[in-house]
Protein backbone atom coordinates (compact mmCIF):
# COMPACT_ATOMS: atom_id res chain seq x y z
CA UNK A 1 0.00 0.00 0.00
CA UNK A 2 2.73 2.41 0.91
CA UNK A 3 5.74 2.82 -1.26
CA UNK A 4 8.91 3.56 0.62
CA UNK A 5 11.39 5.68 -1.22
CA UNK A 6 14.83 4.07 -1.05
CA UNK A 7 16.38 7.39 -0.02
CA UNK A 8 14.77 7.00 3.42
CA UNK A 9 15.05 3.44 4.60
CA UNK A 10 14.34 4.54 8.17
CA UNK A 11 10.78 4.70 9.39
CA UNK A 12 11.32 8.16 10.78
CA UNK A 13 13.90 10.58 9.53
CA UNK A 14 14.28 14.16 10.74
CA UNK A 15 16.85 16.59 9.38
CA UNK A 16 17.43 20.14 10.54
CA UNK A 17 14.04 20.32 12.22
CA UNK A 18 13.35 23.62 13.99
CA UNK A 19 10.28 24.79 15.87
CA UNK A 20 9.64 28.33 17.05
CA UNK A 21 6.70 29.96 18.77
CA UNK A 22 5.67 33.57 18.88
CA UNK A 23 4.99 34.37 22.50
CA UNK A 24 4.12 37.91 23.61
CA UNK A 25 5.94 39.32 20.59
CA UNK A 26 9.07 37.38 21.38
CA UNK A 27 10.33 34.60 19.21
CA UNK A 28 10.81 31.51 21.31
CA UNK A 29 12.93 28.74 19.87
CA UNK A 30 11.84 25.34 21.14
CA UNK A 31 13.78 22.99 18.87
CA UNK A 32 16.98 23.73 16.97
CA UNK A 33 18.36 21.75 14.08
CA UNK A 34 17.13 18.35 15.25
CA UNK A 35 18.47 15.42 13.27
CA UNK A 36 17.16 12.03 14.19
CA UNK A 37 16.39 8.77 12.51
CA UNK A 38 14.51 5.86 13.97
CA UNK A 39 14.33 2.50 12.28
CA UNK A 40 11.44 0.12 12.32
CA UNK A 41 11.43 -1.99 15.47
CA UNK A 42 13.54 0.39 17.57
CA UNK A 43 12.67 1.23 21.14
CA UNK A 44 13.69 4.76 22.07
CA UNK A 45 13.36 6.89 25.12
CA UNK A 46 13.20 10.65 24.74
CA UNK A 47 14.57 12.14 27.93
CA UNK A 48 14.84 15.66 29.18
CA UNK A 49 13.84 18.10 31.87
CA UNK A 50 10.44 19.72 31.61
CA UNK A 51 10.51 22.64 29.20
CA UNK A 52 13.39 21.11 27.27
CA UNK A 53 11.21 20.63 24.19
CA UNK A 54 10.72 16.88 24.42
CA UNK A 55 6.92 17.11 24.25
CA UNK A 56 7.17 19.39 21.22
CA UNK A 57 9.46 16.83 19.61
CA UNK A 58 6.92 14.11 20.32
CA UNK A 59 4.10 16.22 18.84
CA UNK A 60 6.16 16.75 15.71
CA UNK A 61 7.03 13.07 15.51
CA UNK A 62 3.31 12.25 15.90
CA UNK A 63 2.28 14.72 13.18
CA UNK A 64 0.18 16.69 15.65
CA UNK A 65 2.33 19.75 15.10
CA UNK A 66 4.26 20.93 12.09
CA UNK A 67 7.89 22.09 12.37
CA UNK A 68 8.93 25.46 10.95
CA UNK A 69 11.91 24.21 9.01
CA UNK A 70 13.86 21.11 8.13
CA UNK A 71 12.90 17.87 6.51
CA UNK A 72 10.73 15.14 7.93
CA UNK A 73 9.99 11.86 6.24
CA UNK A 74 7.65 9.42 7.87
CA UNK A 75 7.52 6.00 6.25
CA UNK A 76 8.57 7.62 3.00
CA UNK A 77 6.04 10.47 3.11
CA UNK A 78 7.32 14.03 3.00
CA UNK A 79 5.40 15.62 5.86
CA UNK A 80 5.76 19.14 4.46
CA UNK A 81 4.06 18.13 1.26
CA UNK A 82 1.21 16.19 2.85
CA UNK A 83 -2.30 17.66 3.09
CA UNK A 84 -4.08 17.71 6.47
CA UNK A 85 -6.19 14.76 5.33
CA UNK A 86 -3.09 12.77 4.44
CA UNK A 87 -1.54 13.59 7.81
CA UNK A 88 -4.74 12.37 9.48
CA UNK A 89 -4.56 9.17 7.46
CA UNK A 90 -0.91 8.57 8.48
CA UNK A 91 -1.79 9.15 12.14
CA UNK A 92 -4.70 6.78 11.78
CA UNK A 93 -2.81 3.93 10.11
CA UNK A 94 0.80 4.28 11.27
CA UNK A 95 0.82 5.90 14.69
CA UNK A 96 -0.65 4.82 17.99
CA UNK A 97 -0.69 7.42 20.74
CA UNK A 98 -0.48 6.70 24.46
CA UNK A 99 -0.85 9.77 26.65
CA UNK A 100 0.14 10.47 30.23
CA UNK A 101 -3.46 11.38 31.12
CA UNK A 102 -4.83 8.44 29.09
CA UNK A 103 -7.09 10.75 26.99
CA UNK A 104 -9.94 8.30 26.71
CA UNK A 105 -13.27 9.76 25.64
CA UNK A 106 -15.33 9.81 28.85
CA UNK A 107 -18.67 9.42 27.08
CA UNK A 108 -17.72 6.22 25.32
CA UNK A 109 -17.31 2.75 26.82
CA UNK A 110 -13.85 1.13 26.84
CA UNK A 111 -14.89 -0.92 23.83
CA UNK A 112 -16.09 2.12 21.84
CA UNK A 113 -12.90 3.98 22.77
CA UNK A 114 -10.78 1.17 21.38
CA UNK A 115 -12.95 0.88 18.27
CA UNK A 116 -12.75 4.60 17.50
CA UNK A 117 -9.58 4.64 15.31
CA UNK A 118 -11.05 1.91 13.11
CA UNK A 119 -14.21 3.93 12.51
CA UNK A 120 -12.06 6.64 10.92
CA UNK A 121 -10.94 4.06 8.38
CA UNK A 122 -14.45 3.26 7.31
CA UNK A 123 -14.46 -0.13 9.03
CA UNK A 124 -18.04 -1.12 9.77
CA UNK A 125 -19.20 -0.75 13.34
CA UNK A 126 -19.74 -4.47 13.77
CA UNK A 127 -16.26 -5.37 12.59
CA UNK A 128 -14.49 -2.59 14.48
CA UNK A 129 -16.21 -3.62 17.72
CA UNK A 130 -15.09 -7.19 17.15
CA UNK A 131 -11.48 -6.18 16.62
CA UNK A 132 -11.64 -3.87 19.62
CA UNK A 133 -12.90 -6.73 21.76
CA UNK A 134 -9.95 -8.89 20.67
CA UNK A 135 -7.55 -6.06 21.46
CA UNK A 136 -9.05 -5.61 24.93
CA UNK A 137 -8.58 -9.35 25.52
CA UNK A 138 -4.95 -8.95 24.56
CA UNK A 139 -4.40 -6.28 27.22
CA UNK A 140 -6.37 -8.35 29.73
CA UNK A 141 -9.49 -6.20 30.01
CA UNK A 142 -12.05 -8.27 28.12
CA UNK A 143 -14.53 -8.29 30.97
CA UNK A 144 -14.38 -4.50 31.40
CA UNK A 145 -15.28 -3.75 27.79
CA UNK A 146 -18.55 -2.02 28.57
CA UNK A 147 -17.29 0.09 31.47
CA UNK A 148 -16.88 3.82 31.07
CA UNK A 149 -13.32 5.10 31.62
CA UNK A 150 -14.48 6.73 34.88
CA UNK A 151 -15.25 3.26 36.28
CA UNK A 152 -11.74 1.96 35.58
CA UNK A 153 -8.55 2.31 37.61
CA UNK A 154 -5.58 4.27 36.27
CA UNK A 155 -3.73 1.15 35.15
CA UNK A 156 -6.83 -0.21 33.47
CA UNK A 157 -7.40 3.08 31.69
CA UNK A 158 -3.87 3.05 30.38
CA UNK A 159 -4.36 -0.50 29.15
CA UNK A 160 -7.48 0.63 27.30
CA UNK A 161 -5.45 3.49 25.82
CA UNK A 162 -2.76 1.05 24.72
CA UNK A 163 -5.39 -1.22 23.20
CA UNK A 164 -6.73 1.82 21.33
CA UNK A 165 -3.20 2.67 20.13
CA UNK A 166 -2.70 -0.90 18.92
CA UNK A 167 -6.04 -1.68 17.34
CA UNK A 168 -5.09 -0.07 14.05
CA UNK A 169 -1.88 -2.15 13.83
CA UNK A 170 0.40 0.91 13.74
CA UNK A 171 4.09 0.83 12.95
CA UNK A 172 4.94 3.26 15.77
CA UNK A 173 3.66 3.74 19.29
CA UNK A 174 4.27 7.23 20.63
CA UNK A 175 3.92 7.32 24.38
CA UNK A 176 4.10 10.56 26.35
CA UNK A 177 4.98 9.72 29.96
CA UNK A 178 2.77 6.62 29.80
CA UNK A 179 3.43 5.74 33.43
CA UNK A 180 3.49 9.28 34.79
CA UNK A 181 0.09 9.02 36.47
CA UNK A 182 0.46 5.45 37.73
CA UNK A 183 1.87 3.88 40.87
CA UNK A 184 5.15 2.06 40.52
CA UNK A 185 3.88 -1.52 40.31
CA UNK A 186 1.21 -0.58 37.74
CA UNK A 187 3.85 1.42 35.88
CA UNK A 188 5.97 -1.72 35.79
CA UNK A 189 3.11 -3.72 34.26
CA UNK A 190 2.43 -1.08 31.61
CA UNK A 191 6.12 -0.92 30.67
CA UNK A 192 6.23 -4.71 30.45
CA UNK A 193 3.25 -4.65 28.15
CA UNK A 194 4.77 -2.01 25.88
CA UNK A 195 8.14 -3.75 25.72
CA UNK A 196 6.52 -7.09 24.98
CA UNK A 197 4.69 -5.52 22.07
CA UNK A 198 7.95 -4.05 20.83
CA UNK A 199 9.73 -7.36 21.10
CA UNK A 200 7.05 -9.68 19.81
CA UNK A 201 5.27 -7.58 17.21
CA UNK A 202 8.19 -5.40 16.13
CA UNK A 203 6.22 -2.25 16.86
CA UNK A 204 8.53 0.76 17.01
CA UNK A 205 8.32 2.25 20.48
CA UNK A 206 9.04 5.89 21.26
CA UNK A 207 8.54 6.89 24.89
CA UNK A 208 8.93 10.36 26.35
CA UNK A 209 9.95 10.08 29.96
CA UNK A 210 12.01 11.70 32.65
CA UNK A 211 12.25 8.45 34.59
CA UNK A 212 15.75 6.95 34.29
CA UNK A 213 14.49 3.47 35.25
CA UNK A 214 12.18 3.39 32.27
CA UNK A 215 14.88 4.74 29.99
CA UNK A 216 17.18 1.94 31.16
CA UNK A 217 14.87 -0.64 29.61
CA UNK A 218 14.90 0.93 26.14
CA UNK A 219 17.51 0.35 23.45
CA UNK A 220 18.10 3.99 22.57
CA UNK A 221 18.15 7.08 24.71
CA UNK A 222 17.62 10.45 23.05
CA UNK A 223 18.41 13.41 25.26
CA UNK A 224 16.75 16.75 24.68
CA UNK A 225 18.35 19.75 26.35
CA UNK A 226 17.31 23.34 25.56
CA UNK A 227 15.94 22.35 22.18
CA UNK A 228 19.02 20.40 21.13
CA UNK A 229 19.01 16.64 20.67
CA UNK A 230 21.88 14.26 21.57
CA UNK A 231 21.85 10.54 21.42
CA UNK A 232 23.37 8.65 24.34
CA UNK A 233 25.51 5.60 23.62
CA UNK A 234 23.48 2.64 22.45
CA UNK A 235 23.28 -0.27 24.82
Amino acid at each position, binding site marked *: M*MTQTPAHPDLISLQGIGKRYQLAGQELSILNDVCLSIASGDSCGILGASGSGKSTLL*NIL*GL*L*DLPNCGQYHFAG*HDIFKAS*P*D*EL*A*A*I*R*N*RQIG*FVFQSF*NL*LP*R*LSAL*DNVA*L*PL*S*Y*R*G*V*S*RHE*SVEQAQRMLEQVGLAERAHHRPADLSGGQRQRVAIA*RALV*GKPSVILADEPTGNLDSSTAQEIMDLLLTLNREQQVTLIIVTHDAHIAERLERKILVRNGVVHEAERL
Partner: protein
Amino acid sequence: MSLRVEQSLSQLLHEAFISLRTLGKRSILALLGIVIGSSSVVALINIGHNAAVDAAMIFKDMGTDTLVAQFPPKGGSNVPMRTRLDLDSVRLAVPGIAHIGALSLFSGPIVFHGRTTNANLVGSTPDIHAAMRLVMREGRFLSAFDANETYAVIGDQLAQALGAPGDPLKLGDRVRINDYLFLIVGILHNQPRAMLMPVQANESLFIPAEGMRRVYASPQISNVIIRAAPGQDMERIARDTAAALQPQLTEHDVDITVPQQMIDGMTRQSRTFAYLLLALGAISLVGGGVGVMNVMLMNVSERRREIGIRMALGARQRDIRNLFLLEAVTLTAVGALCGAVLGMTAAWLYAWLSGWAFALAVAALPLGVGSTLLVGLFFGIYPAVSASRLQPVEALRDE
Protein backbone atom coordinates in the same frame (compact mmCIF):
# COMPACT_ATOMS: atom_id res chain seq x y z
CA MET B 1 -3.36 7.32 1.08
CA SER B 2 -6.63 8.86 0.00
CA LEU B 3 -8.27 5.47 -0.37
CA ARG B 4 -10.20 6.14 2.81
CA VAL B 5 -13.81 5.14 3.04
CA GLU B 6 -16.26 7.46 4.79
CA GLN B 7 -17.16 6.63 8.33
CA SER B 8 -20.14 4.33 8.36
CA LEU B 9 -23.48 5.99 9.01
CA SER B 10 -24.40 3.67 11.87
CA GLN B 11 -21.16 4.58 13.63
CA LEU B 12 -21.85 8.30 13.16
CA LEU B 13 -25.42 8.07 14.43
CA HIS B 14 -24.31 5.94 17.36
CA GLU B 15 -21.84 8.62 18.43
CA ALA B 16 -24.28 11.49 17.89
CA PHE B 17 -26.88 9.85 20.11
CA ILE B 18 -24.37 9.01 22.85
CA SER B 19 -23.19 12.60 22.80
CA LEU B 20 -26.68 14.11 22.89
CA ARG B 21 -27.71 11.82 25.72
CA THR B 22 -24.74 12.88 27.79
CA LEU B 23 -25.28 16.52 26.87
CA GLY B 24 -28.43 16.22 28.96
CA LYS B 25 -30.11 19.28 30.34
CA ARG B 26 -28.51 21.76 28.01
CA SER B 27 -29.61 19.97 24.87
CA ILE B 28 -33.13 19.80 26.28
CA LEU B 29 -33.14 23.57 26.72
CA ALA B 30 -31.92 24.09 23.18
CA LEU B 31 -34.54 21.60 22.08
CA LEU B 32 -37.21 23.74 23.72
CA GLY B 33 -36.38 26.71 21.49
CA ILE B 34 -36.49 24.53 18.40
CA VAL B 35 -39.74 22.87 19.47
CA ILE B 36 -41.39 26.26 19.99
CA GLY B 37 -40.18 27.54 16.64
CA SER B 38 -41.09 24.45 14.70
CA SER B 39 -44.47 24.02 16.37
CA SER B 40 -45.39 27.64 15.77
CA VAL B 41 -44.60 27.29 12.08
CA VAL B 42 -46.68 24.12 11.83
CA ALA B 43 -49.53 25.52 13.93
CA LEU B 44 -49.63 28.89 12.23
CA ILE B 45 -49.66 27.48 8.73
CA ASN B 46 -52.46 25.15 9.71
CA ILE B 47 -54.47 27.79 11.56
CA GLY B 48 -54.12 30.15 8.60
CA HIS B 49 -55.31 27.40 6.30
CA ASN B 50 -58.31 26.58 8.50
CA ALA B 51 -59.23 30.25 8.78
CA ALA B 52 -59.19 30.58 5.01
CA VAL B 53 -61.30 27.44 4.61
CA ASP B 54 -63.79 28.76 7.15
CA ALA B 55 -63.98 32.20 5.56
CA ALA B 56 -64.54 30.69 2.16
CA MET B 57 -67.33 28.55 3.60
CA ILE B 58 -69.17 31.58 4.96
CA PHE B 59 -69.33 33.04 1.49
CA LYS B 60 -70.16 29.78 -0.19
CA ASP B 61 -73.29 29.54 2.01
CA MET B 62 -74.66 32.59 0.33
CA GLY B 63 -73.92 31.23 -3.08
CA THR B 64 -71.73 32.78 -5.67
CA ASP B 65 -74.71 33.29 -8.00
CA THR B 66 -76.04 36.24 -5.98
CA LEU B 67 -75.31 39.89 -6.68
CA VAL B 68 -76.06 42.82 -4.40
CA ALA B 69 -76.50 46.27 -5.90
CA GLN B 70 -76.04 49.43 -3.89
CA PHE B 71 -76.84 52.99 -4.90
CA PRO B 72 -74.34 55.48 -3.56
CA PRO B 73 -75.35 59.10 -4.25
CA LYS B 74 -73.43 60.94 -6.95
CA GLY B 75 -70.99 63.56 -5.75
CA GLY B 76 -72.42 65.75 -2.98
CA SER B 77 -76.02 65.09 -3.96
CA ASN B 78 -78.43 64.50 -1.10
CA VAL B 79 -81.49 63.73 -3.17
CA PRO B 80 -83.20 60.71 -1.61
CA MET B 81 -83.12 57.46 -3.52
CA ARG B 82 -86.19 56.45 -5.46
CA THR B 83 -88.93 54.50 -3.76
CA ARG B 84 -89.43 52.11 -6.62
CA LEU B 85 -87.49 50.84 -9.59
CA ASP B 86 -88.73 49.21 -12.75
CA LEU B 87 -87.14 45.81 -12.17
CA ASP B 88 -89.13 44.08 -14.90
CA SER B 89 -87.44 46.17 -17.56
CA VAL B 90 -84.08 45.23 -16.07
CA ARG B 91 -85.03 41.56 -16.19
CA LEU B 92 -85.98 41.96 -19.85
CA ALA B 93 -82.81 43.87 -20.68
CA VAL B 94 -80.41 41.43 -19.05
CA PRO B 95 -80.69 37.78 -20.03
CA GLY B 96 -79.59 35.31 -17.35
CA ILE B 97 -81.26 36.94 -14.35
CA ALA B 98 -83.37 34.36 -12.55
CA HIS B 99 -84.69 36.56 -9.76
CA ILE B 100 -84.43 40.23 -8.97
CA GLY B 101 -85.89 42.02 -5.99
CA ALA B 102 -85.53 45.35 -4.23
CA LEU B 103 -85.20 46.11 -0.51
CA SER B 104 -85.93 49.25 1.44
CA LEU B 105 -84.66 49.15 4.97
CA PHE B 106 -85.82 50.75 8.16
CA SER B 107 -85.40 49.68 11.70
CA GLY B 108 -87.77 50.20 14.55
CA PRO B 109 -89.63 48.63 17.45
CA ILE B 110 -92.12 45.83 16.91
CA VAL B 111 -94.71 45.11 19.58
CA PHE B 112 -96.45 41.81 20.13
CA HIS B 113 -98.65 41.11 23.18
CA GLY B 114 -96.94 43.94 25.02
CA ARG B 115 -93.42 42.70 24.26
CA THR B 116 -91.22 45.04 22.24
CA THR B 117 -88.19 44.14 20.15
CA ASN B 118 -86.14 46.19 17.73
CA ALA B 119 -85.97 44.66 14.29
CA ASN B 120 -85.12 45.36 10.68
CA LEU B 121 -88.22 46.34 8.77
CA VAL B 122 -87.64 45.27 5.20
CA GLY B 123 -89.86 46.54 2.44
CA SER B 124 -89.58 43.76 -0.12
CA THR B 125 -90.75 43.03 -3.61
CA PRO B 126 -92.12 39.47 -3.98
CA ASP B 127 -89.08 38.18 -5.84
CA ILE B 128 -86.90 38.77 -2.76
CA HIS B 129 -88.12 35.39 -1.57
CA ALA B 130 -86.22 33.59 -4.30
CA ALA B 131 -83.40 36.13 -4.69
CA MET B 132 -82.39 35.82 -1.02
CA ARG B 133 -83.08 32.05 -0.90
CA LEU B 134 -85.54 32.45 1.94
CA VAL B 135 -87.07 29.20 3.14
CA MET B 136 -90.53 29.23 4.71
CA ARG B 137 -91.21 27.29 7.87
CA GLU B 138 -94.87 28.14 7.94
CA GLY B 139 -97.26 30.09 5.74
CA ARG B 140 -96.18 31.87 2.59
CA PHE B 141 -94.06 34.79 1.45
CA LEU B 142 -95.49 38.11 0.29
CA SER B 143 -96.89 38.09 -3.24
CA ALA B 144 -97.63 40.76 -5.80
CA PHE B 145 -101.26 40.75 -4.69
CA ASP B 146 -100.30 41.77 -1.14
CA ALA B 147 -99.03 45.19 -2.23
CA ASN B 148 -101.75 47.09 -0.42
CA GLU B 149 -102.18 44.76 2.53
CA THR B 150 -100.70 45.07 6.01
CA TYR B 151 -99.16 41.61 5.76
CA ALA B 152 -95.77 40.63 7.11
CA VAL B 153 -93.33 37.68 7.01
CA ILE B 154 -91.19 37.28 10.09
CA GLY B 155 -87.65 35.91 10.55
CA ASP B 156 -87.04 32.94 12.81
CA GLN B 157 -85.08 34.63 15.58
CA LEU B 158 -87.34 37.66 15.62
CA ALA B 159 -90.38 35.40 15.96
CA GLN B 160 -88.75 33.67 18.92
CA ALA B 161 -87.80 36.99 20.49
CA LEU B 162 -91.38 38.28 20.29
CA GLY B 163 -92.92 35.03 21.46
CA ALA B 164 -92.88 33.88 25.04
CA PRO B 165 -93.11 30.40 26.57
CA GLY B 166 -96.75 29.37 26.26
CA ASP B 167 -97.43 32.30 23.97
CA PRO B 168 -95.45 31.79 20.77
CA LEU B 169 -95.88 33.99 17.74
CA LYS B 170 -98.07 32.06 15.31
CA LEU B 171 -99.39 32.48 11.80
CA GLY B 172 -102.34 34.84 11.85
CA ASP B 173 -101.07 36.82 14.86
CA ARG B 174 -100.73 40.54 14.50
CA VAL B 175 -97.69 42.58 15.42
CA ARG B 176 -97.79 46.35 15.86
CA ILE B 177 -95.41 48.80 14.21
CA ASN B 178 -96.20 52.40 15.16
CA ASP B 179 -99.98 52.50 14.81
CA TYR B 180 -100.35 49.72 12.25
CA LEU B 181 -101.09 46.11 12.92
CA PHE B 182 -99.45 43.70 10.52
CA LEU B 183 -100.81 40.22 9.96
CA ILE B 184 -98.15 37.50 10.04
CA VAL B 185 -98.65 35.43 6.87
CA GLY B 186 -95.35 33.55 6.99
CA ILE B 187 -92.58 32.52 9.35
CA LEU B 188 -89.11 31.89 7.92
CA HIS B 189 -86.89 28.95 8.60
CA ASN B 190 -83.66 29.72 10.44
CA GLN B 191 -81.33 31.05 7.71
CA PRO B 192 -77.55 30.69 7.78
CA ARG B 193 -75.82 34.03 8.15
CA ALA B 194 -75.06 35.51 4.77
CA MET B 195 -72.17 37.91 5.08
CA LEU B 196 -72.78 39.80 1.86
CA MET B 197 -76.49 40.38 2.36
CA PRO B 198 -77.51 43.85 3.55
CA VAL B 199 -79.98 42.32 6.05
CA GLN B 200 -80.02 39.15 8.11
CA ALA B 201 -83.32 37.47 7.40
CA ASN B 202 -83.47 35.95 10.90
CA GLU B 203 -83.76 39.36 12.52
CA SER B 204 -86.07 40.95 9.99
CA LEU B 205 -89.73 41.56 9.36
CA PHE B 206 -90.57 41.59 5.64
CA ILE B 207 -93.48 43.78 4.56
CA PRO B 208 -94.65 44.80 1.07
CA ALA B 209 -92.42 47.50 -0.39
CA GLU B 210 -95.45 49.58 -1.29
CA GLY B 211 -96.52 49.66 2.38
CA MET B 212 -93.24 51.03 3.71
CA ARG B 213 -94.74 54.50 3.79
CA ARG B 214 -96.98 53.33 6.62
CA VAL B 215 -93.97 53.06 8.94
CA TYR B 216 -91.53 55.48 7.37
CA ALA B 217 -92.37 58.71 5.63
CA SER B 218 -89.77 58.59 2.88
CA PRO B 219 -88.76 55.02 2.15
CA GLN B 220 -85.84 54.57 -0.26
CA ILE B 221 -84.63 51.53 -2.10
CA SER B 222 -81.37 50.62 -0.45
CA ASN B 223 -80.42 47.47 -2.34
CA VAL B 224 -81.36 45.34 -5.26
CA ILE B 225 -80.67 41.62 -4.92
CA ILE B 226 -80.13 39.68 -8.12
CA ARG B 227 -79.83 35.94 -8.48
CA ALA B 228 -78.49 34.64 -11.74
CA ALA B 229 -79.61 31.55 -13.57
CA PRO B 230 -77.13 28.68 -13.25
CA GLY B 231 -73.93 28.83 -15.26
CA GLN B 232 -73.95 32.55 -16.01
CA ASP B 233 -70.96 34.86 -16.20
CA MET B 234 -71.47 36.88 -13.02
CA GLU B 235 -69.23 39.72 -14.15
CA ARG B 236 -71.29 40.22 -17.30
CA ILE B 237 -74.59 40.16 -15.44
CA ALA B 238 -73.27 42.67 -12.94
CA ARG B 239 -72.14 44.96 -15.75
CA ASP B 240 -75.36 44.66 -17.78
CA THR B 241 -77.58 45.08 -14.75
CA ALA B 242 -75.72 48.21 -13.72
CA ALA B 243 -76.13 49.55 -17.26
CA ALA B 244 -79.85 48.71 -17.24
CA LEU B 245 -80.46 50.29 -13.84
CA GLN B 246 -78.48 53.45 -14.41
CA PRO B 247 -81.00 55.20 -16.78
CA GLN B 248 -83.63 54.95 -14.05
CA LEU B 249 -81.42 56.94 -11.67
CA THR B 250 -80.37 60.53 -12.00
CA GLU B 251 -78.64 61.31 -8.76
CA HIS B 252 -77.23 57.88 -7.83
CA ASP B 253 -74.67 55.45 -9.13
CA VAL B 254 -75.11 51.70 -9.33
CA ASP B 255 -72.51 49.68 -7.49
CA ILE B 256 -72.76 45.91 -7.81
CA THR B 257 -70.63 43.58 -5.75
CA VAL B 258 -69.73 40.24 -7.30
CA PRO B 259 -69.33 37.66 -4.49
CA GLN B 260 -66.56 35.83 -6.29
CA GLN B 261 -64.51 39.02 -6.20
CA MET B 262 -65.08 39.29 -2.49
CA ILE B 263 -64.18 35.66 -1.95
CA ASP B 264 -61.01 36.23 -3.93
CA GLY B 265 -60.25 39.36 -1.92
CA MET B 266 -60.90 37.49 1.30
CA THR B 267 -58.66 34.63 0.21
CA ARG B 268 -55.93 37.10 -0.67
CA GLN B 269 -56.34 38.75 2.69
CA SER B 270 -56.18 35.49 4.59
CA ARG B 271 -53.15 34.51 2.56
CA THR B 272 -51.43 37.73 3.58
CA PHE B 273 -52.40 36.92 7.13
CA ALA B 274 -50.95 33.42 6.78
CA TYR B 275 -47.69 34.84 5.44
CA LEU B 276 -47.54 37.15 8.41
CA LEU B 277 -48.03 34.23 10.77
CA LEU B 278 -45.44 32.27 8.84
CA ALA B 279 -42.96 35.09 9.27
CA LEU B 280 -43.62 35.04 13.00
CA GLY B 281 -42.98 31.30 13.06
CA ALA B 282 -39.81 31.76 11.06
CA ILE B 283 -38.56 34.36 13.51
CA SER B 284 -39.12 32.08 16.48
CA LEU B 285 -37.41 29.32 14.52
CA VAL B 286 -34.38 31.53 14.00
CA GLY B 287 -34.44 32.16 17.75
CA GLY B 288 -34.38 28.41 18.29
CA GLY B 289 -31.57 28.10 15.77
CA VAL B 290 -29.48 30.60 17.71
CA GLY B 291 -30.11 28.42 20.77
CA VAL B 292 -28.82 25.39 18.91
CA MET B 293 -25.77 27.31 17.77
CA ASN B 294 -25.12 28.39 21.33
CA VAL B 295 -25.31 24.84 22.64
CA MET B 296 -23.12 23.54 19.86
CA LEU B 297 -20.48 26.24 20.40
CA MET B 298 -20.42 25.43 24.13
CA ASN B 299 -20.27 21.80 23.20
CA VAL B 300 -17.30 22.36 20.90
CA SER B 301 -15.36 24.42 23.41
CA GLU B 302 -16.04 21.89 26.17
CA ARG B 303 -14.90 19.07 23.97
CA ARG B 304 -11.70 20.63 22.63
CA ARG B 305 -9.67 17.88 24.17
CA GLU B 306 -11.90 15.23 22.69
CA ILE B 307 -11.51 16.86 19.29
CA GLY B 308 -7.72 16.73 19.76
CA ILE B 309 -7.85 13.07 20.74
CA ARG B 310 -10.00 12.21 17.76
CA MET B 311 -7.59 14.06 15.47
CA ALA B 312 -4.65 12.17 16.99
CA LEU B 313 -6.52 8.95 16.31
CA GLY B 314 -6.84 9.90 12.67
CA ALA B 315 -10.04 11.90 12.32
CA ARG B 316 -9.90 14.20 9.34
CA GLN B 317 -11.30 17.73 9.43
CA ARG B 318 -14.45 16.57 7.69
CA ASP B 319 -14.91 13.75 10.23
CA ILE B 320 -14.90 16.30 13.05
CA ARG B 321 -17.19 18.63 11.11
CA ASN B 322 -19.64 15.82 10.36
CA LEU B 323 -19.61 14.71 13.98
CA PHE B 324 -20.78 18.09 15.26
CA LEU B 325 -23.05 18.80 12.31
CA LEU B 326 -24.81 15.50 12.79
CA GLU B 327 -25.27 16.28 16.46
CA ALA B 328 -26.83 19.64 15.63
CA VAL B 329 -29.11 18.12 13.01
CA THR B 330 -30.09 15.22 15.26
CA LEU B 331 -30.93 17.73 17.96
CA THR B 332 -33.09 19.79 15.60
CA ALA B 333 -34.68 16.68 14.10
CA VAL B 334 -35.88 15.60 17.53
CA GLY B 335 -37.08 19.18 18.08
CA ALA B 336 -38.80 19.25 14.69
CA LEU B 337 -40.71 16.05 15.41
CA CYS B 338 -41.83 17.23 18.85
CA GLY B 339 -42.71 20.58 17.28
CA ALA B 340 -44.78 18.94 14.54
CA VAL B 341 -46.83 17.01 17.10
CA LEU B 342 -47.21 20.05 19.36
CA GLY B 343 -48.04 22.36 16.44
CA MET B 344 -50.72 20.03 15.11
CA THR B 345 -52.21 19.74 18.58
CA ALA B 346 -52.23 23.53 18.94
CA ALA B 347 -53.84 23.98 15.52
CA TRP B 348 -56.48 21.39 16.33
CA LEU B 349 -57.17 23.03 19.68
CA TYR B 350 -57.47 26.44 18.02
CA ALA B 351 -59.84 25.10 15.40
CA TRP B 352 -61.89 23.41 18.10
CA LEU B 353 -62.10 26.57 20.21
CA SER B 354 -63.08 28.65 17.17
CA GLY B 355 -65.67 26.12 16.13
CA TRP B 356 -63.99 25.45 12.80
CA ALA B 357 -63.66 22.16 11.07
CA PHE B 358 -60.06 20.99 11.46
CA ALA B 359 -58.39 20.39 8.13
CA LEU B 360 -54.74 19.44 7.75
CA ALA B 361 -52.87 21.93 5.60
CA VAL B 362 -50.81 20.01 3.07
CA ALA B 363 -47.86 22.35 3.39
CA ALA B 364 -47.77 22.55 7.18
CA LEU B 365 -45.80 19.41 8.05
CA PRO B 366 -43.19 19.35 5.28
CA LEU B 367 -42.68 23.10 5.56
CA GLY B 368 -42.46 23.10 9.36
CA VAL B 369 -40.17 20.09 9.68
CA GLY B 370 -38.12 20.96 6.60
CA SER B 371 -37.47 24.54 7.62
CA THR B 372 -36.52 23.41 11.12
CA LEU B 373 -33.96 20.96 9.76
CA LEU B 374 -32.56 23.66 7.50
CA VAL B 375 -32.25 25.98 10.48
CA GLY B 376 -30.40 23.25 12.39
CA LEU B 377 -28.06 22.70 9.47
CA PHE B 378 -27.48 26.42 9.01
CA PHE B 379 -26.76 27.15 12.66
CA GLY B 380 -24.83 23.91 13.11
CA ILE B 381 -22.36 24.59 10.33
CA TYR B 382 -20.43 27.36 12.03
CA PRO B 383 -19.67 25.49 15.29
CA ALA B 384 -18.89 22.31 13.35
CA VAL B 385 -16.51 24.03 10.95
CA SER B 386 -14.80 25.93 13.76
CA ALA B 387 -14.29 22.59 15.56
CA SER B 388 -12.81 21.02 12.47
CA ARG B 389 -10.37 23.92 11.98
CA LEU B 390 -8.70 23.36 15.36
CA GLN B 391 -5.07 22.30 15.20
CA PRO B 392 -4.56 18.90 16.85
CA VAL B 393 -1.77 20.09 19.12
CA GLU B 394 -3.77 23.10 20.30
CA ALA B 395 -6.89 21.07 20.86
CA LEU B 396 -4.92 18.56 22.93
CA ARG B 397 -3.19 21.17 25.07
CA ASP B 398 -4.49 21.42 28.60
CA GLU B 399 -6.41 24.61 29.32
